[in-house]
């Protein structure tokens, strides 16, 4: 009975992911036709979200010894999804969607909070799903998390250096003071990209460990 329920839920999830991918491709096509970078970016991120969702479905299957994903592994996947959704909005803002509108400030304010409290969401997710006598994290969790954090730090450093070099090398860009929210959103997007890469690395390490 439980198996049938799981299969049915998996089928619906697959359909939802296919719809997200189709929407992404449509937005990409629109972006190409209109020559709008933020639409193209949004479409690419939607497709990436669909791909990540499918990868999560595959990765969360029981391993060879029947081991199911731990809470920490599921938290990593959840963070990849949340981070990509945030990148979709902030990346779009930095490329000029919602230009000059008040909503861009509201979105920016909301996503500042998401970026600032990103690690706390993870802890909250794990604590909320802990069952009686479960531990929040063991030695293996700490080792895998440390590797992910190291990758995230390196990615953020490289992204900041690349952005700084690009801005110095291209003096012809319009002044940031004219569209400050765009530049600010770009900076937050870089932090989020680094977080997502780090979480993806952790999720992959968990998966490999279970195989």
């Amino acid at each position, binding site marked *: 009975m439980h198996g049938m329920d799981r299969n049915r839920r998996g089928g619906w999830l697959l359909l939802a992911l296919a719809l997200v991918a189709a929407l992404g491709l449509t937005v990409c096509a629109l972006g190409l036709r209109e020559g709008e970078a933020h639409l193209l970016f949004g479409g690419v991120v939607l497709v990436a979200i669909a791909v990540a969702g499918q990868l999560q479905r595959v990765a969360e299957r029981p391993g060879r010894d029947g081991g199911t994903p731990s809470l920490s592994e599921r938290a990593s996947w959840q963070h990849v999804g949340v981070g990509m959704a945030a990148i979709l909005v902030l990346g779009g803002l930095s490329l000029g969607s919602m230009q000059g509108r008040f909503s861009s*400030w509201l979105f*920016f*304010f909301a996503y*500042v909070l998401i*970026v*600032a409290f990103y690690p706390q969401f993870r802890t909250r997710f794990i604590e909320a799903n802990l069952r009686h006598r479960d531990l929040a994290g063991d030695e293996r969790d700490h080792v895998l998390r*440390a590797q992910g*954090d*190291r990758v*995230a*730090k390196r990615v*953020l*450093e490289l992204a*900041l*250096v690349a*952005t*700084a*070099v690009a*801005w*110095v090398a*291209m*003096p012809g*860009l319009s*002044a*940031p*003071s*004219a569209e*400050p*929210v765009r*530049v*600010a*959103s770009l*900076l*937050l997007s*870089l*932090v989020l990209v680094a977080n997502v890469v780090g979480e993806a690395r952790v999720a992959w390490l968990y998966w490999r460990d279970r195989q």
Partner: protein
Amino acid sequence: MQTRPWQVAGLAAIALPALWLLLAGPERALGVDSGNAGMVLLVTAAWTSLLALSRLPRGEAERKIAPAEWKAWIGTGFMLVAMVFLATRAELFLGPSADRHTAQGVVRSLVMLLVAWAVLSRVVAARWAGAVDEDERDREIALRASGHGRNALVMAGIALAVSLGFSPPDRLAWATHLGIANLLVFGLMLGWLVEYAATALMYVTDRRR
């Protein structure tokens, strides 16, 4: 072999003018760019102290101080000087009247400093090559310090983004691409400084326990 007072005085005679030239000196001293001259003197001081260190026998005191702690202290010193150097030249980068040519000279000096730091840290690593130089405690400290460094870097990024996002446009005259690029580099150095300083402090605290 003991360190003699004249050696310390000699080192100070090189390091102090270097710091003066870098942080508070005139733009040009004796017809030479003071930033470059200060950088050369500072690197000379660092090399001299490293040479003195390498000639010391591997005594009890040295065995107590882990290679990672030496590296952390050197990194802290270099990052501190580099950050203060960049901060004292901030008016060259920020604002619409930023002088691109002068700013490039400062960036050149800064890059020299960072390259010199990278070379020095390699030399320190080579000095302990072949010895078992990392244990469980070192890894634990490195992990925690790296976390502090990453948090500092993320906080610097968020602070810059919030300043840009929530400041009225008439107060953002400083926000040129050149200025923000240099603030990003400053944030990066802050992250490294926090990481090195946290490492060094954790070793000191651990030794005193």
